């Protein structure tokens, strides 16, 4: 089952290619079914996953290029199981936004499936070569999708995003090649590499160089300050379902690969950088928070907010304790769902109103109650209110990082106040206040297909908010296995 995960959307994309563009119902059905099938498989894997069992579950290995030590390997531990679940939820919610009527629907759905397929690949692969291949494959559909269906400065945003992420990717590829050479055992098998490096760690100087390359390279996609500037512009330009996937899931590949490559393989090297990483993360939290206050465009505001929250995740990684990393993984999940929900809401409004200024709207609480409720709840989740899984995650990060970086944790807690300022202000001006007569024709989400993505995402936030153990029982043992 797990082998099929990335290939089902690929097959869907190929089928879409063969369907004539005017048969839109069929196109939508293919997109829905292939995304839904992957979702169902992920849920089944999640249900049958045995928490607390060490090592990788559902492990398969297929020989690919023996002379280079390349196998097609898949397997799940608690960390990538959680992220697969995140991707399954967000991609399913996203496909409901993607199938809405638009220009060149066929091309859009083709690229959409081409985007979600390699993400499954990244989160299931256990071979360094294929991890990298899938990681960079996500770039193929992004440029045309943002360029063709985006808004506001889309060409600049698309180009900036693609070039930044590629530059980061090639730096980490350089790290991978250096590691391959230094190991001398000619293998890209992640499980074996991890085993060998546990026994005989590499020289600290070498670890420092390569860990630096990984942190820098994957830091770009994790929007580590000051490499974050592609992110708000890119998200503002991208169409709704792409913003959802990118802010929700793609960005999480950065910290995920940092855990896999940097923390698991060269902990000494990461330790050498952890002070700098934590400082940059702290600056990012504050800087992006203040920047979010100043934004006039809702999408820019959420974009900066996501940079700010990624700072917490990176802080959790820098502290390198079991609690902080578990909190970071938990926040990757919670923030991913929350960010996707935000972009879905803004997209829902924008598609009707073609406006998304923070001050453009008003009184949605009366005219669009469902959307307004979702907006309020997502904002509260983003604030880290107890009851949403974001709360548990941020708490774990603060507790786990307190010993190493008390000052930065202090700033991080302060930044929650900043988050409150811009989010509550947005809630106030969008949902409350006098209704702006300009928008009296806007329709609320009434049909089930309109409501489903929001229900799905907010439901997951609630579920794991009241039952954080549901995720933590998977994450904690896996993190213990990653740390030396």
């Amino acid at each position, binding site marked *: 089952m797990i082998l099929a995960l990335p290939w089902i959307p690929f097959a869907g994309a190929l089928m879409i290619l063969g369907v004539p563009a005017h048969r839109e119902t069929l196109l939508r059905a293919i997109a829905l079914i292939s995304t839904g099938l992957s979702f169902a498989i992920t849920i089944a894997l999640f249900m049958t996953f045995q928490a607390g069992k060490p090592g990788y579950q559902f492990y398969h290995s297929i020989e*690919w*290029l023996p*002379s280079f030590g390349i196998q097609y390997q898949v397997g799940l531990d608690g960390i990538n199981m959680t992220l697969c679940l995140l991707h399954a939820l967000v991609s399913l919610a996203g496909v409901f936004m993607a199938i809405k009527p638009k220009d060149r629907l066929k*091309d859009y759905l083709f690229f959409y499936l081409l985007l979600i397929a390699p993400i499954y690949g990244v989160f299931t692969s256990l071979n360094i070569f294929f991890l*990298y*291949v*899938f990681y*960079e*494959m996500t*770039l*193929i559909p992004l*440029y*045309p999708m943002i*360029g*063709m269906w985006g808004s506001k400065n*889309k*060409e600049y945003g698309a*180009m900036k995003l*693609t*070039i930044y992420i*590629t*530059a980061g990717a*090639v*730096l980490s*590829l*350089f790290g991978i*090649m*250096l590691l*391959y*050479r230094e190991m001398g055992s000619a293998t890209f098998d992640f499980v074996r590499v991890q085993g060998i490096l546990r026994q005989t760690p590499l020289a600290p100087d070498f670890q420092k160089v390569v860990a630096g390359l990984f942190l820098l390279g994957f830091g770009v996609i994790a929007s580590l300050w000051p490499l974050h500037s592609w992110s708000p512009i890119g998200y503002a330009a991208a169409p709704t379902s792409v913003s959802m996937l990118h802010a929700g899931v793609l960005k999480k590949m950065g910290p995920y690969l940092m855990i896999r490559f940097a923390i698991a393989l060269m902990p000494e090297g990461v330790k050498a950088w952890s002070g700098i990483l934590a400082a940059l993360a702290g600056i990012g939290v504050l800087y992006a928070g203040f920047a979010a206050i100043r934004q006039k465009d809702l999408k820019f505001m959420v974009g900066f907010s996501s940079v700010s929250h990624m700072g917490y995740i990176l802080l959790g990684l820098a502290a390198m304790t079991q609690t902080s990393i578990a909190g970071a993984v938990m926040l990757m999940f919670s923030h991913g769902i929350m960010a996707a929900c935000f972009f879905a809401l803004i997209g829902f409004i924008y598609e009707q109103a073609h406006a998304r200024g923070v001050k453009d709207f008003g009184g949605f609480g009366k005219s669009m109650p469902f959307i307004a409720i979702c907006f309020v709840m997502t904002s509260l989740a983003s604030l880290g209110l107890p009851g949403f899984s974001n709360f548990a995650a941020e708490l774990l990060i603060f507790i786990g990082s307190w010993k190493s970086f008390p000052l930065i944790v202090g700033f991080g807690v302060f930044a929650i106040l900043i988050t409150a300022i811009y989010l509550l202000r947005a809630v106030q001006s969008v949902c409350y206040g006098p209704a702006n007569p300009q928008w009296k024709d806007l329709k609320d989400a009434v049909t089930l297909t309109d409501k489903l993505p929001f229900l799905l995402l907010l439901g997951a936030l609630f579920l794991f908010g009241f039952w954080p153990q549901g995720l933590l029982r998977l994450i904690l043992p896996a993190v213990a296995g990653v740390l030396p």
Partner: protein
Amino acid sequence: MNLSLFLPELTAVGVILIFLVREALRKNGSDVAQGSYSLPALCGTVLVFLALLCTAGTHGAAFGNTFILDPLAFFFKIFFTLSAFVILAMSGEFFRNRPEKSAEFFLILWCTLIGLFFLASANDLLLLFVALEVVTLSFYILTAYLKHDLLSIEASVKYLILGSLASAFTVYGISMLYVATGTTSLSGLNQAFAAGATGPLVLGGILFILSGLGFKVASVPFQLWTPDVYEGAPTPTVAFLAVGSKAAGFAILIRLIFSAFLPLEPHRVMLFSVLAAMTLCYGNLGALLQTNVKRLFGYSSIGHAGYLLIGLAAGKAEGITATLYYLIAFALSNLAAFFVISIVGESSGGHQLDHFKGLARRSPFLAGVFFISLLSLAGVPPLAGFFGKFLILLAAVRGSLGWLALLGLIFVAVSLYFYLSIVRAMYIDAPARTEKIPVALSVKLLLTALVAGIIVAGLWQAPFLHWAQVAASSL
């Protein structure tokens, strides 16, 4: 002497003779439909391909050891034949609605192919020089073929002047080596060098020959002709220059460096890594500001020469294998790209970026093919170009050329910028014209095959890698 080694060349000569006779017998003034030459020419390549398959696995020398057939030669002959097949099809499309007669164009393309065959098999500097001249002279004519087009003539003059200079360098180098060692045969040179022949004449001769070849592969500092010739020459010629001529240069370079030029070995890594670094910088930075797609491809082809040179710097078995794999990937992607450029250029009347605007609406198929080949050229997985770059850069890292690999990787991000600028014109910009571009079914099939090749060589690398390894092991 074993004539069966010579079967593919004989077949090719036979095809040329048939063409000549056919042209001679044709009554003066009787018009032949344009494009009617491409089908017989394509059948010819199939014949040559079959003849090549008959020689598969054989290993031997002929004509007093001046001509050898080994897996490396076999690799390149297959490579040239398949490329020629695509180029011939491209030429057929190119001349379909043009006023120029195309008969001679096909004939000269065939002469080029013969020259390339002899280059791949040359085991003597004299044969090598003659074959090189056959190829180069044919390219002078192919470049100038659009005789009413000033750009085409300008390109040809530039190519002629610089090309003659390069030939002069080569022949001068050969004579110096002959003076120093008394032989022109590669095996003889190898023995002489192994016995300790050295001195300024030897190193000077080697450097002169390498300079001549540097012109062929468009390596810095012999790259100046490339953008101008790419811009002005007829598109099928450019495609053949980019794929055939460059590959031929590397075929000879590989054979000379690793089996004959022993005195170069202590300096090889230094020389080629510096050349590679300069070539990478020149090609990739130069391409950033281009607005003419063919000119942009000229610069990008210099950049790719830089990657290929990294392979030569990186080391023997691994480096050669990587270089050969890169050539396969480069040829597949470049042929597909030039096919699209040729069709769009003919139907839009130019090769500026503006002419590609809105291609996604005018012909989604052509735009899709172009998109994939551009991504492959940039080195995005899972396409062939990615694995080629991966092999070359991995070989460099393992050969302790980390800085060079890092440079190559950084230029991947840079090159993405100019390749994506074409994608932007095709997919995002408003179309300058709206009429659809018709694509014949045969062209569609051929382009689909090329795209399939790009994807297969990127995902299922094992057979291609094996083929390249076998070819590399013959030295």
